[in-house]
């Protein structure tokens, strides 16, 4: 490389600003305006103190969960803007039309995929786990509350790096999988791929810590009588997901670190020359990538299970089979990573995550679908928004599953690989399969978190827009995929494709209305919160433990810890008219004090990433030193808990 590297600013210079296109400039300005607007509003409302002590430094799992979900929703908007920009480009791009130059289009699909997987889906699912799991098992908090806050802030730091890349420098053009040799320095010099690497690395550390935290929480902090087979289904899926995180994320850390070394130090892990081996990247990446699909999807299945049982007013059918199916899927997910490049050559095949994997997952998944159907059979079904999303999932997932089986037939696979058929297929698995589940979970637990329900009508509207928008946006991609349209096309010359791409763009517009409806729903519900607060402790006639505490719950969740003896213990208690027995409080309740350790380490992680990306070595060193001193200082702190006094309580207010 022939760049100048200044000791102070590394390779950062005025040319890092996005002056190369008005679209990029606009994106940068919106990002900056959004950030400044947020700061201005907080200042104007005089809420800095509340934000700092109520949220940023909070170690309460419920608040951390809410912050994760806020992060996920923000990144959903950002990822969706990328998506609709691509849809518009492809709708216009016949014969070189459109408004995006190729390089910019590549940045957009790379950031869309990266954001949606790492900074939308991961934080969303982690947030839901954070909020619901300790409540569901009758615990006062997670096992390691401070580490929980560190996890969140590292994830936020990674997301911050992706957002900053829009303003300072560029993002990767190498797709969300960052396959070498294209992602090596010879082909992609500059900071784009480095942004991708460090965003993924920093947040990956956070995810690993989350995995450890939740395995310990679920296995060690259950209340008396909460045996494994009494646990709610969502907690089971959270457990399996967390175990997968602990085992799978090291592979992501290793593979991205090696790519970083190749790019920054000049090693030869994945280069074409010097004895590098590109196949190693594929192996390591998919050792993580295949389980990652289940990390995202299993908890969504857990939410569907809770929702189906609650809104059918029936006990979950076949609970043990659901538990075993979940465990089988989790174990299998480690044995099949090879199929991602095995049948498909070494091209960039994101599709394959959801491709043949579907075959393997098909049997236990089939079991689950039948369990849900039997749960609904002869139930009194209430069509509240979470249930709508669940039913929508069941309809759309069948299509996705069928296309997966199609993909597994070799000639079809041959004809469709790397086409939009695969784009359609994996969106078909992950939008209904994961995202619908998260949205259902968000609407389901919202009253528990804030003490009032979300507006029903706007929830239903959001659902119908998402549902129809999804069909319009992705079914055409199956068609043009079979007609042979490759994925990642910035422009094309086949006039037969264009009508379908226009339909797909209209579908994306409907999804936009779905997202807007979610926003309006939130707005309307906050406005009408008094009316919506009725019966908020147990708004859905819930079955599991979390509905037995107040909404919002006190910081310590349960003043006297419940003692359970059956599954669905809260439902049982309502049925028999006997309240759930509790363990009398013998000592005072201790809750962990707020601490700035999490945000400081997140900030330091951001500095390390930003410093290495731009070769600002002093910044990276300062970041590392800050991590070390913060951890050491923390280990000297003894007075980390305060006594809580139930009755005078505080909760999320």
């Amino acid at each position, binding site marked *: 490389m022939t760049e100048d590297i200044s000791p102070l600013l590394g390779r950062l210079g005025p040319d890092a600003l996005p002056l190369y296109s008005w679209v990029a400039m606009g994106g940068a300005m919106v990002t900056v305006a959004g950030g400044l607007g947020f700061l201005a509003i907080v200042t104007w409302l005089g809420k800095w103190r509340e934000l700092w002590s109520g949220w940023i430094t909070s170690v309460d799992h419920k608040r951390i969960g809410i912050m994760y979900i806020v992060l996920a929703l923000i990144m959903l908007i950002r990822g969706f803007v990328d998506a609709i920009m691509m849809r518009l480009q492809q709708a216009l791009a016949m014969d070189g039309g459109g408004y995006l130059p190729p390089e910019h289009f590549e940045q957009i699909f790379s950031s869309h995929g990266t954001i949606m997987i790492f900074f939308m889906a991961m934080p969303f699912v982690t947030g839901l786990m954070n909020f619901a799991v300790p409540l569901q098992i009758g615990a006062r908090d997670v*096992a*390691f509350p401070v580490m929980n806050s560190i996890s969140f802030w590292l994830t936020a730091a990674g997301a911050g790096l992706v957002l900053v890349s829009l303003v300072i420098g560029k993002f990767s053009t190498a797709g969300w999988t960052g396959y070498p040799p294209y992602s090596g320095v010879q082909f992609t010099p500059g900071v784009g791929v480095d942004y991708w690497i460090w965003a993924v690395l920093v947040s990956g550390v956070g995810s*690993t810590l989350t*995995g*450890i*935290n939740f*395995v*310990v929480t679920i*296995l*060690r*902090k259950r209340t008396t009588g909460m045996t494994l087979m009494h646990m709610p289904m969502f907690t089971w899926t959270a457990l399996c997901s967390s175990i997968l995180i*602990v*085992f799978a*994320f*090291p*592979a992501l*850390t*290793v593979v991205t670190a*090696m790519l970083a*070394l*190749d790019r920054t*130090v*000049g*090693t*030869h*892990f994945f*280069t074409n*020359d*010097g*004895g*590098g*081996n590109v196949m*190693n990247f594929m192996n*390591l990446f998919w*050792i993580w990538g295949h389980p990652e699909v289940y990390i995202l999807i299993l908890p969504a299945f857990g939410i569907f299970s809770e929702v189906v049982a609650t809104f059918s007013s029936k006990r979950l059918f076949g609970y043990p089979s659901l538990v075993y199916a979940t465990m089988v899927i989790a174990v299998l997910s480690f044995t099949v990573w090879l199929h991602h490049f095995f049948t498909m050559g070494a091209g960039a095949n994101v599709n394959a995550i959801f491709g043949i994997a579907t075959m393997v997952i098909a049997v236990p998944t089939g079991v689950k679908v039948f369990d849900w159907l039997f749960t609904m059979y002869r139930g009194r079904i209430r069509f509240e928004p979470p249930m709508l999303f669940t039913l929508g999932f069941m309809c759309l997932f069948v299509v996705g599953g069928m296309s997966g089986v199609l993909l597994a037939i070799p000639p079809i696979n041959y004809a469709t690989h790397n086409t939009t058929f695969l784009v359609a297929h994996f969106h078909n698995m992950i939008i209904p399969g994961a995202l619908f589940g998260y949205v259902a979970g968000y609407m389901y637990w919202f009253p528990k978190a804030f003490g009032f329900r979300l507006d029903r009508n706007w929830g239903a509207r959001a659902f119908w827009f998402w549902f129809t928008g999804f069909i319009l946006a992705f079914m055409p991609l199956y068609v043009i995929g079979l007609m042979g349209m490759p994925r990642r096309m910035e422009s094309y010359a086949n006039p037969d494709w264009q009508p379908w791409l226009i339909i797909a763009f209209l579908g994306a517009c409907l999804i936009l209305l779905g997202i807007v409806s979610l926003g309006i729903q939130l707005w309307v519900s906050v406005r009408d919160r008094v009316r919506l607060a009725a019966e908020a402790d147990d708004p859905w006639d819930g079955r599991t433990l979390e509905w037995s505490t107040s909404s919002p719950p006190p910081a310590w969740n349960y003043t006297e810890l419940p003692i359970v003896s059956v599954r669905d213990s809260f439902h049982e208690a309502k049925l028999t008219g006997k309240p759930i027995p509790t363990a009398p409080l013998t*000592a005072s309740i*201790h809750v962990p004090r707020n601490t700035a350790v999490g945000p400081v380490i997140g900030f330091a992680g951001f500095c390390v990433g930003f410093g290495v990306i731009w070769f600002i070595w002093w910044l990276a060193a300062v970041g590392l030193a800050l991590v*070390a001193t913060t951890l*050491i200082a923390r*280990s*000297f702190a*003894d007075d980390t808990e305060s006594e809580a006094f139930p009755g005078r309580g505080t909760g999320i207010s």
Partner: protein
Amino acid sequence: MTTAVRHSDSEVSFGFWLYLMSDAILFGLIFATFVVMSTNLAGGPGGTDLFSMTNLSMQTALLLTSSLTVALAHHAAMEERIGPALVWLALTFALGAGFLVLEVRELSGFVASGAGPNRSGYLSAFFTLLSTHGLHVSAGLIWIGTMMMQLLLKGPNSRVLSRLSRLTLFWHFLDIVWIGIFSVVYLPELF
């Protein structure tokens, strides 16, 4: 209160075991990469040309001994004999630091002779494996220093002791990884 502390202590050690498991997978994957790349010399030097038996035996002796001293430190601290515990910890620190000095000297010698990490795929994997281990040892040294301070300032209270037991575990873990490096990376080249 005591039961609460003991309870949370078991949570912490369970969590620490999970971390070690996750870390073991991380090392396992780097080992696997090393093995796959062990013939990718790209015309550069191989282990046979580079490694020195004396250096290897000295490094190994230092690290194995330090595993013994850290165990003795833990033992002494458990019996509330702070003086001996501090001495053993200081000795562990010295042995670990000695190991690192030898490692840095060896690796920088390789770099100086043109066999740096960007010479070949083999050397990339070699350097990465060794420095990942070396970074863990450095973190361990910082941890040892911190524990000595805590023993001095706080005495052998239950939290300090429980941290010390995890430090011991961590240090043994690094020893095991080193034995892996010894047998996978060095032995085949030296014999």
